[in-house]
C-alpha cells in the first residue's frame, strides 16, 4: 500500500539501452518508492533483464538517467552500485558452485559495512531459510533449483542492501516452492526491504506486488497499482495483443 509520504528511492528516467545497433530499451521510466514491492512483467525478450542490468551497472545506458537516493548512478561499475545499497538475485541464481552454502552467504557480506554484521545477517538468513542452515556445509553445486534460488536471495540479503532486484525467481521451479519464496519476499519486505521483481508470471506478479509495470519489446506499455490492474488486460499486453502491439 503506497502512502503519500513514501520517498522515491530509485528513479529511472527515459532510459535507452543498445546492444550494438539493436535497441533493447526505449525511453523507460520507473519510480520505486521505498519499502514497496514493484514488479516488472513481460515476456522473454521484453527487456526486463536488460533493465535490471542497467540499474546494476552490468549494461551501460545510451541515454537517460538512473538515480538512487538523489544520486546519479547511471553507468557506474556494478560493484560501486552494490556498495551504494542495490543488489540483485540474478537470473539462474548464479551461486558460487565450488563454495559451500555458508561460504556463498559469507561472500554476500563482502563489503565492510555488511562484513561487520555478518554473524547477525547470517542468523537472519538462516531464520528465513532453514534449509540453507541444514545444508550450510555442503557445496552449493549439490543444491536443488529451489534451494539455489533461496541461496541467491539469501546472498543478496547478506549484502545488507536497501533494494534487492530479483530476476525471474520463479523460473523452472515448482509452484509450491515459488509460493514459499514469494511469502519470504513479502516477509522481508515487511521488515523494510524494497524489492523489484522481474517476472513472466502475471498472476503472481500482480498478487504479491504493490505496483506493476508491464513491458513489451523494450517499452513500458502499462503501469499502475497492482491491485487495480486487470489481469486480463495485463495478459493481453504481455502477449502484445491489440493496442499494445
Amino acid at each position: 500500500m503506497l502512502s503519500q509520504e513514501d520517498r522515491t528511492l530509485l528513479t529511472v528516467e527515459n532510459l535507452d539501452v543498445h546492444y550494438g545497433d539493436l535497441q533493447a530499451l526505449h525511453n523507460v521510466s520507473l519510480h520505486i518508492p521505498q519499502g514497496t514491492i514493484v514488479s516488472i512483467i513481460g515476456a522473454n525478450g521484453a527487456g526486463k533483464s536488460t533493465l535490471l542490468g542497467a540499474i546494476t551497472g552490468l549494461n551501460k545506458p545510451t541515454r537517460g538517467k538512473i538515480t538512487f537516493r538523489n544520486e546519479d548512478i547511471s553507468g557506474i561499475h556494478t560493484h560501486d552500485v552494490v556498495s551504494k545499497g542495490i543488489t540483485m538475485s540474478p537470473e539462474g541464481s548464479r551461486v558460487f558452485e565450488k563454495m559451500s552454502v555458508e561460504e556463498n552467504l559469507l561472500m554476500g557480506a563482502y563489503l565492510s559495512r555488511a562484513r561487520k554484521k555478518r554473524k547477525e545477517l547470517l542468523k537472519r538468513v538462516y531464520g528465513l531459510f532453514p534449509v540453507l542452515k541444514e545444508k550450510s556445509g555442503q557445496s552449493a553445486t549439490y543444491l536443488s533449483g529451489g534451494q539455489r534460488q533461496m541461496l541467491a536471495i539469501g546472498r543478496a540479503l547478506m549484502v545488507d542492501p536497501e533494494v534487492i532486484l530479483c530476476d525471474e525467481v520463479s523460473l523452472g521451479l515448482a509452484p509450491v516452492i515459488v509460493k514459499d519464496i514469494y511469502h519470504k519476499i513479502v516477509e522481508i519486505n515487511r521488515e523494510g526491504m524494497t524489492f523489484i521483481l522481474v517476472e513472466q508470471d502475471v498472476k503472481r506478479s500482480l498478487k504479491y506486488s504493490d505496483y506493476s509495470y508491464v513491458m513489451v519489446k523494450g517499452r513500458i506499455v502499462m503501469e499502475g497499482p497492482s491491485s487495480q490492474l486487470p489481469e486480463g488486460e495485463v495478459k493481453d499486453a504481455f502477449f502484445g495483443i491489440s493496442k499494445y502491439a
Partner: protein
Amino acid sequence: MEVLLQLVINGILLGGLYAMIGLGMSLIFGIMGLINLAHGDLMIISTYMSMVLALHFSGNVFIALLITVLVMMVVGFFCQSVLINRVLDKGAEPPLLITFGLSIILQNVLLLIFGADAKSIPTKLAAQNAITTPWFSISAIYLINFVISILVILSLHFIIMKTYFGRAIRATSGDVVASELVGVNTKRVYAVTMALAMVTASIAGLLIGMTFTYTPTTGTQYLIFAFGVVVIGGMGSLVGTLLGGIILGLAQMLGSYFFGMAYQLFFGYVVLLVILTFRPEGLFARTK
C-alpha cells in the same frame, strides 16, 4: 642403484621448485583463464634484478629479494590493470597475444642490458650438501628450494582458502557477475592476483638464479615447465600443482638416466605432449 635413488630424490626436490614456478601461472590461469606467456620472462627478470641488487648490497640476498618482490608486485599489478584488464572481455586471443608481446619486449630488454652470456647468483650453498649418507646426498640449495617452495605453496593455499580476499578470488574465478553483485571489484581482484603470482615468480626467480645459470632467453624454458605443471597438475588444485611439479622433475631426472643427459628436457616435453593429448584437464583436476 644408488644413482637412481639420487636422481629420484633430486627429481622430487626440483619438482618442488617447478611447482612454485607453475603456481603463479596456475593462479592466473585458474582465476582469469589466461595463460601468461610472459610468466617465465617475468621470473627471469626478477632473477636478474635479484642478481644486480645482491651485488649492490654486498651479497645480501634477503634485501635483494625483498626489493625484487616489491618491484615485481607493482609491475604485475600494473601489467594487469593497464594492459590485460582492458582486453579480457575481447576474446581469448588478445590477452594471450599481449602477453606474447610482453615476452618479446622483456627478453630483448634483458638482452640489451645484460647480453647473452650465462649468469648466476653466486652462493656458497650450491656446492654444499645438507645431508650426506652412503646411499645419497641432498644438496643444500635443492633442499632450500624445496622447503621454500612448500612454504610458499602452503601460504598461498591459506590465503586463498581462509581469508576474505582469497574467497573473493575464488568467487571471481567462479562467476564474475555474481561477484560484482556482492560488491567485489573483479578487475582489482585480477590485478592483485597477478601481483600475488609475481611474488611467487620472484621468489622462484631468486632460487633459480642461485641454483642454475641463466640467460635472457631462459624464461622460455621455464614457461614450458610452468605450463607443464599447470597441465599435469590440473587447475584449482594446489596439491595437484605440487604433484605436477614433482612429476615433471622426476621425468626430467629419469629421462636423463635412461636416455642420457642431453635428452632430459626432451623427455619432459614428450610427457607433457602425451598428457596434453589425452588428459589436458590435468591428472588431478577437480571435476566441475
